[in-house]
């Protein structure tokens, strides 16, 4: 049987971003692949060295459009640790609220794109209609629809009023009801299962070996969630990571479906238990020293290394985003699958190439 090597991406109808996979096929089966990235490098890490450290909050938000708040939060947490700043309890709960609505937004966006990947456009529209409510909520609370700019070093810049809290609670309950209507379709539908069950297997051992993170790791049976470290107010809220043991594309979808419910619960819990008081403290001085900060993003663990030298500018900012950890996993998921399953399996890791390349 002859072998052919054909590129998948960087321009491909199913890919929102330019991931390039050189795939070798034998007949219609994938036998080998080599991933390549480097099409959307923006040099944000270098740019961060030229900006002053409070300005970098807005810069790191632009690493990823979807989990922008969590990038700002991770960076702020790092600087706060270096400067010994203790943020008020209200800011901690607000950070949980903003993080969780970002997570719901990301998961709904992905579930829509996933449905679109196997040609289920009606479902795609249903998910994005539900997501629109969350985006409206983000605009009401944070001011922007996607890039919130509500996190700052020392706390939160956008405190919530009583009225906003009520609207947020109503919206989250509405989205929960919408998801209860839509989710059974992706969980039980015959055609969805036909395209996802048993495809793109990443076993538990391989997931650990290839350094998978987030929902991909949890779908392979490893109960690891960085939120368990208890940053922001997660330590007080308490939750159990969602784990699936099937290790396939379907399991990765189920993890995200269940996590979107969990995120709604966590966001509501944070609002119910929101303490009174200030939402931010004033920051004076410059950071000095180095730190490593980890936060659970919708796609998995993000890692920030910050090195400061006591001046307004940072010496080094290093960001490792979750998709960077997921790309090696594709080397295990794809070989052996059919050519037609490649888009679905690639989408199952929720690739975000712009944040990977920064």
């Amino acid at each position, binding site marked *: 049987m002859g072998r052919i090597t054909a590129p998948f991406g960087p321009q491909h109808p199913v890919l929102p971003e330019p991931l390039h996979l050189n795939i070798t096929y034998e007949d219609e089966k994938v036998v080998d692949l080599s991933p390549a990235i480097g099409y959307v490098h923006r040099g944000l890490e270098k740019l961060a060295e030229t900006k002053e450290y*409070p*300005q970098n909050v807005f*810069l790191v938000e632009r690493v990823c459009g979807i989990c922008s708040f969590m990038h700002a939060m991770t960076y702020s947490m790092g600087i706060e640790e270096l400067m010994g700043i203790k943020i008020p309890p209200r800011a901690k709960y607000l950070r949980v609220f903003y993080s969780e609505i970002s997570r719901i937004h990301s998961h709904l966006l992905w579930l829509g794109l996933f449905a679109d990947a196997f040609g289920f456009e*009606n479902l795609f529209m249903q998910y994005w209609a539900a997501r629109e409510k969350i985006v409206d909520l983000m605009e009401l609370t944070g*001011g922007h629809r996607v*890039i919130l*700019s509500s996190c700052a070093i020392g706390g939160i810049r956008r405190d919530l009023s009583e009225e906003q809290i009520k609207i947020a609670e109503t919206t989250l309950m509405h989205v929960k009801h919408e998801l209860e209507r839509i989710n059974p379709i992706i969980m039980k*539908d015959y055609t969805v299962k036909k395209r996802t069950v048993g495809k793109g297997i990443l076993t538990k051992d391989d997931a650990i070996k290839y350094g998978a993170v987030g929902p991909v790791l949890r779908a392979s049976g490893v109960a690891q969630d960085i939120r368990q470290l208890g940053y922001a107010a997660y330590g007080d809220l308490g939750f159990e990571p969602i784990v699936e043991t099937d290790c396939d594309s379907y399991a990765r979808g189920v993890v995200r479906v269940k996590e979107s419910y969990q995120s709604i619960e966590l966001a509501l819990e944070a609002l119910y238990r929101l303490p009174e008081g200030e939402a931010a403290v004033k920051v004076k001085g410059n950071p000095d020293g180095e730190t490593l900060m980890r936060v659970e993003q919708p796609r998995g663990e993000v890692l920030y290394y910050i090195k400061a030298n006591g001046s307004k500018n940072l010496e080094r900012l290093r960001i490792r985003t979750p998709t960077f950890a997921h790309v090696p996993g594709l080397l295990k998921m794809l070989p052996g699958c059919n050519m037609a399953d490649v888009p679905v399996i690639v989408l199952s890791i929720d690739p975000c190439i712009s944040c990977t390349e920064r």
Partner: protein
Amino acid sequence: MATMIPNVISNLTRRPQTRLYPFEVRQPPLGARGHIDFDMEKCIFCSLCAKRCPADAIKVDRKGKTLTFEPLHCIVCEACIEGCAKDAITLYEQWRSPVTELYSKIYTPL
């Protein structure tokens, strides 16, 4: 796909999820970051806003008393509003309308 049939039928009678833009324009919520504007009666050209701006959208000539603002570079982060000692910058909820060419606004003392 059969599970979607009730949904497809209900869609025949339901209102569309989208708006008939531009005939029906959505009003931005209170506190939305639309655009910013400068009040030249209050501005003293201290350039604090320009120093804080992460997008380098504001440039201040302190000697020449001119403030150049590039609305298309502005990310409406409110850093300038927080930094302004004279409350000369205001946030408006209305979004800036799309344009086809880059432009800048030049402010001089009234």
